C-alpha cells in the first residue's frame, strides 16, 4: 500500500517537473471559468486517443503556442501517403512517434519524431478486402486510432479491428467485427476504456443492424455486443436501465417501435465518436439513421436509431437512452461527439453532456439521467420549431417531412446536418464550444428512375444548396451556459468540415475544405494565423510535446468524405443530385482544391 502511494507521488512529481510551465494537473486548467470541472485527464504531452481525452473536449492544456506567438507557426514536418481519398480523423503521438492511419487500404504509418523531417519508421499494411470500397457509402475513409498497452488499435474498412505493436509495427491481433457480405463496413475510431476496446459500425444505407462491439484489449476476443434495434436483451437493456422520458421507457421498444420484423434491418449504426466518464464509469455515443431510409416503409419510432446511449463499458449494460428524433425522415444521424463537462447550470453544478447535433440543435443533457436541459438551434433550422423539454420530443413541421406523395422543400438543415461528424472542441477557459457548422438546406423533388441489381425503382431527387444568408459553413463559438452564439467565422462556398482543437494558449485551430489551416483567438474569433495547404482539410487538428520539449500542432489534409468526395475526379459536378444530393451544395470545390492525403506538423 505504502509502496503504491509512494509510486503515485513520485509519478506526479516527475510529471510536474517534466512539463515545466505546461504543468497543468490532469483535469485542472489554470484560468478555467469558475465551477468548471473536467472529468477526464487532458493530453499533457502525447495524444493517445481520437479526441485527446475521454471526455471528448478536444482541449489541450498546452500553452507554449499561444495568441502571442501563433503567427510564427511554420511547417516542420510533412508526409504524403499518396492516397487520393478523404483523410478524416487525426494522428496520434505516443512515445516520440507519430502514427497516421490512412483511408483504404488503411495503412498505419509511424514517423520518428526524434529526427529532422520525421522519417518513416515503418508502414503496416493490413491488406483489407477490396470489395469494401464498393460497399462503403461515402468515400473510403477512416477516422483514426487509439493507443493502449503498447498497441495501436484501429479498424479497417472490411470490418476488422486490428491491434499493431506500437514499436515494431507488427500485428498483435485481428478480430472480424462485421459482415462485409451484408453491407457492413467500419470507419470509426475505436476507444479503449480499461481493458475494453469499443468499436461501432457503418452501413446504415444498406439496412445493416447497428451495433457496438466490445473487445478484450489483450486478445481481441469479443466480450459483448449491444445492438441498436431488437429486443432488450440484444440492446443490453436490463435492470440498471432508466430512461428519463416516458417515450423511451417500456419493454422491447426496439421491437415494438417497428412493423413486424423490420428491426432486423434497423440501421442505427455507430460511425462517430465514443466518450467516457471515468467518474461515473459510463460511455456515451450516438446512433445513425434507421434502415430503410424510406420512412413510409417503417412506421413507428424506430428505436434505437438517432439515439444517445449511456452504458457501462465493462458489461455493456445500458444506463439510459434518449432518442433525439423518433422516426427519422431526413437522415439526421446523431453519431456526433458527446462532450462531457461538469459546469454550473442555472445555479448548480451539473454533469453535462454537450451534443451539437446533425438536427441543427445544440443539446445539453444531464449525463447522469439523460434529461434534456436545453436544445437551441445553432444553425438555421426549419424541420422543427424547437424541442419540448417536458417530453424530450421535437416540435416538427409536418410540411417539411418528405413522403412518397409529398416533396418537402426548404428543409434546413439538409441531410448533411447542422454539422457533420467532425468534432467540436470545448475550452474550460472560455466556457465555449467551438462548433464546425454547416448552413445548407434541401428540396425533395419529383422521382427519378434508378436502377440497381437488375431492378428499376424510383427515388426522390434531393438537391442541397446554401441556407439563409447565402453562406455554407461557419466556425461557431457557442456559449454553453447562455445557449447562444458568441462569434462565428463564415465560409461562403463550403461547409466547415474539419474537427476543432482549442488550447490553453487561447487558440482555436481548424481547417477549411479548400485547404486553409487556421488559428483563431478563442475569445474573439479573430484570425491570428493561417496557411494554405496542399489539399482540403476534413481531418481533426491535434497538438503534442515533441522530444525537444516544444509544442507542435498536426493536421491531415486530403479532401474527400461524403461532401468532399465531390472534389474527387470520379464524381461529376454536372448533376446537382449526384452523391446523394450534395453536389448541388459543392459545385465549386473542384476549382478550389485537389485530392491528396498528407500529415503536416507545425512548430513555432
Amino acid at each position: 500500500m505504502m509502496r503504491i502511494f509512494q509510486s503515485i507521488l513520485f509519478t506526479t512529481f516527475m510529471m510536474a517537473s517534466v512539463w515545466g510551465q505546461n504543468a497543468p494537473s490532469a483535469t485542472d486548467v489554470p484560468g478555467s471559468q469558475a465551477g468548471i470541472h473536467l472529468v477526464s485527464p487532458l493530453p499533457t504531452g502525447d495524444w493517445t486517443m481520437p479526441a485527446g481525452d475521454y471526455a471528448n473536449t478536444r482541449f489541450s492544456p498546452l500553452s507554449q503556442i499561444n495568441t502571442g506567438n501563433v503567427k510564427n507557426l511554420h511547417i516542420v514536418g510533412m508526409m504524403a501517403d499518396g492516397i487520393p481519398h478523404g483523410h478524416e480523423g487525426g494522428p496520434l503521438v505516443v512515445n516520440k512517434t507519430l502514427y497516421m492511419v490512412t483511408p483504404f487500404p488503411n495503412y498505419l504509418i509511424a514517423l520518428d519524431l526524434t529526427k529532422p523531417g520525421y522519417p518513416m519508421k515503418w508502414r503496416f499494411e493490413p491488406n483489407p478486402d477490396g470489395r469494401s470500397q464498393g460497399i462503403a457509402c461515402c468515400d473510403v475513409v477512416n477516422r483514426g486510432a487509439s493507443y493502449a498497452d503498447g498497441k495501436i488499435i484501429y479498424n479497417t474498412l472490411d470490418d476488422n479491428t486490428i491491434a499493431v505493436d506500437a514499436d515494431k509495427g507488427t500485428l498483435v491481433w485481428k478480430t472480424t467485427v462485421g459482415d462485409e457480405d451484408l453491407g457492413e463496413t467500419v470507419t470509426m475510431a475505436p476507444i479503449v476504456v480499461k481493458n475494453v476496446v469499443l468499436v461501432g459500425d457503418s452501413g446504415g444505407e444498406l439496412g445493416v443492424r447497428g451495433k457496438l462491439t466490445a473487445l478484450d484489449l489483450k486478445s481481441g476476443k469479443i466480450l459483448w455486443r449491444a445492438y441498436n434495434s431488437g429486443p432488450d436483451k440484444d440492446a443490453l437493456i436490463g435492470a440498471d436501465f432508466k430512461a428519463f422520458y416516458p417515450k423511451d421507457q417500456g419493454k422491447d421498444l426496439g421491437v415494438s417501435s417497428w412493423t413486424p420484423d423490420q428491426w432486423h434491418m434497423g440501421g442505427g449504426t455507430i460511425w462517430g465518436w465514443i466518450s467516457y466518464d471515468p467518474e461515473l464509469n459510463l460511455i456515451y455515443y450516438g446512433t445513425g439513421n434507421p434502415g430503410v431510409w424510406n420512412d413510409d416503409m417503417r412506421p413507428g419510432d424506430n428505436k434505437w436509431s438517432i439515439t444517445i446511449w449511456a452504458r457501462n463499458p465493462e458489461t455493456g449494460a445500458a444506463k439510459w437512452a434518449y432518442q433525439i428524433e423518433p422516426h427519422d425522415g431526413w437522415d439526421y444521424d446523431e453519431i456526433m461527439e458527446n462532450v462531457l463537462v461538469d459546469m454550473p447550470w442555472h445555479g448548480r453544478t451539473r454533469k453535462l453532456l454537450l451534443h451539437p447535433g446533425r438536427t441543427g440543435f445544440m443539446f445539453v443533457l444531464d449525463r447522469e439521467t439523460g434529461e434534456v436541459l436545453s436544445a437551441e438551434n445553432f444553425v438555421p433550422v426549419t424541420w422543427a420549431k424547437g424541442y419540448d423539454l417536458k417530453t424530450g420530443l421535437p416540435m416538427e413541421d409536418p410540411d417539411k417531412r418528405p413522403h412518397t406523395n409529398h416533396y418537402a422543400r426548404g428543409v434546413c438543415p439538409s441531410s448533411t446536418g447542422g454539422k457533420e461528424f467532425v468534432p467540436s472542441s470545448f475550452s474550460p477557459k472560455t466556457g465555449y464550444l467551438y462548433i464546425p457548422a454547416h448552413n445548407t438546406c434541401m428540396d425533395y423533388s419529383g422521382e427519378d428512375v434508378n436502377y440497381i441489381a437488375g431492378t428499376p425503382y424510383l427515388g426522390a431527387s434531393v438537391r442541397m444548396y446554401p441556407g439563409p444568408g447565402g453562406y455554407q459553413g461557419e466556425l461557431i463559438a457557442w456559449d454553453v451556459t447562455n445557449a447562444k452564439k458568441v462569434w462565428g467565422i463564415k465560409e461562403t462556398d463550403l461547409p466547415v468540415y474539419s474537427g476543432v482543437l482549442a488550447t490553453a494558449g487561447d487558440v482555436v485551430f481548424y481547417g477549411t475544405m479548400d485547404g486553409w489551416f487556421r488559428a483563431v483567438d478563442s475569445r474573439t474569433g479573430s484570425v491570428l494565423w493561417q496557411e494554405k495547404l496542399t489539399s482540403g482539410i476534413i481531418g481533426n487538428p491535434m497538438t503534442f510535446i515533441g522530444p525537444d520539449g516544444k509544442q507542435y500542432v498536426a493536421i491531415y489534409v486530403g479532401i474527400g468524405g461524403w461532401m468532399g468526395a465531390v472534389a474527387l475526379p470520379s464524381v461529376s459536378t454536372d448533376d446537382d443530385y449526384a452523391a446523394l444530393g450534395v453536389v448541388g451544395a459543392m459545385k465549386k470545390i473542384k476549382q478550389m482544391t485537389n485530392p491528396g492525403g498528407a500529415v503536416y506538423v507545425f512548430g513555432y
Partner: protein
Amino acid sequence: MSSAIRKMAAFVFCCALPVLAATPELRVCADPNNLPYSNQQQQGFENALAKLAASDLGMNVSYFWFPQRHKFFRNTLQAGVCDVVMEVPSGIDIASTTVPYFRSTYVFVSRRDRNLRIASFDDPRLKNLRIGVHVTGENDEAMPSTTALLHRGLVRNLEGYSIFGKLSEQNPGADIVRAVADQDIDVAVVWGPLGGYFAEHSSEPLEATPVCAAPADRQLPLSFEISMGVRPGNEALRDKLNEFILRHRSEIRQLLDSYAVPLVSAPEVTCP
C-alpha cells in the same frame, strides 16, 4: 515444304495475329452473381444477349465484373472499363440508351399450392398475408409496386428484403423468392425478370403473376422499358446496338421467353 508454302506460312504467321487482335471487343460490364441477368459463368440472359450482339456486329465479348450496387455506374461505364451495360431502364440519366428491347412489370410470386394468383394491389386477401418486398436503402427510394402497397395501408404486412442480399450467396437477389418457397412469407412482389425466372426454377412449384394497375395507381409507373446503355458520347456504339436490336427482335424475344421474363406491351396493364 516448298518455298511458296513456306512463304505462305510465314505470311500467315506474321499477319494472322494482328488480324485477330484487330477484332473489335464489345466490352460489357455485368454483375458476376445475379441471375437471371448475368453471372461469371455467363448463364444469364444479359450474357446470351451480349454474345448475340457481338457476333452480329463482328465483335468479341469481354467482361468487367462488378456487383450492381450503388456506385455501379461510376465504377463501370463512367470509369471507362467497359462500353455497354446490357440492361438499363430506357432514358435513364446515367447512360445513353438504345431503343427498348423489352418491357416488363412487377410480379406477385406465390406458391402454386396456395392457389392465390393475386394480380391486384386491391386484392382483399393481401390484408392477411405477409408480403415480401425488396428494399434498396438509399435516399427516399422504393419500387413503385411497394409504393402501391403502402398506399393501400399495407405497411404492417410488408417484410423487407435487401435487394443486395448476402454477397457470399448465389444470386443474392433471389432470397425473397426462396422465402416464398420456404413459406417465410406468403407472397413476394418483385421485378418481373427475377420473379419469372426463379418461380420457374424453384424446387417448390411457384407462379409469377404480373401486377395490374388500378385507376388509383395512375401516377405510378408499374412497368418499364429496358434498353442497353452506353457511355454518353459513345453514340456510335449505341447506333450499332440499335441496328442489332431492330434486326433481331424475334431472337431477342425468344431469348427472353426462354428465361421466363414476363413481357408486357401496354404501358400499364389495367386491372379487370
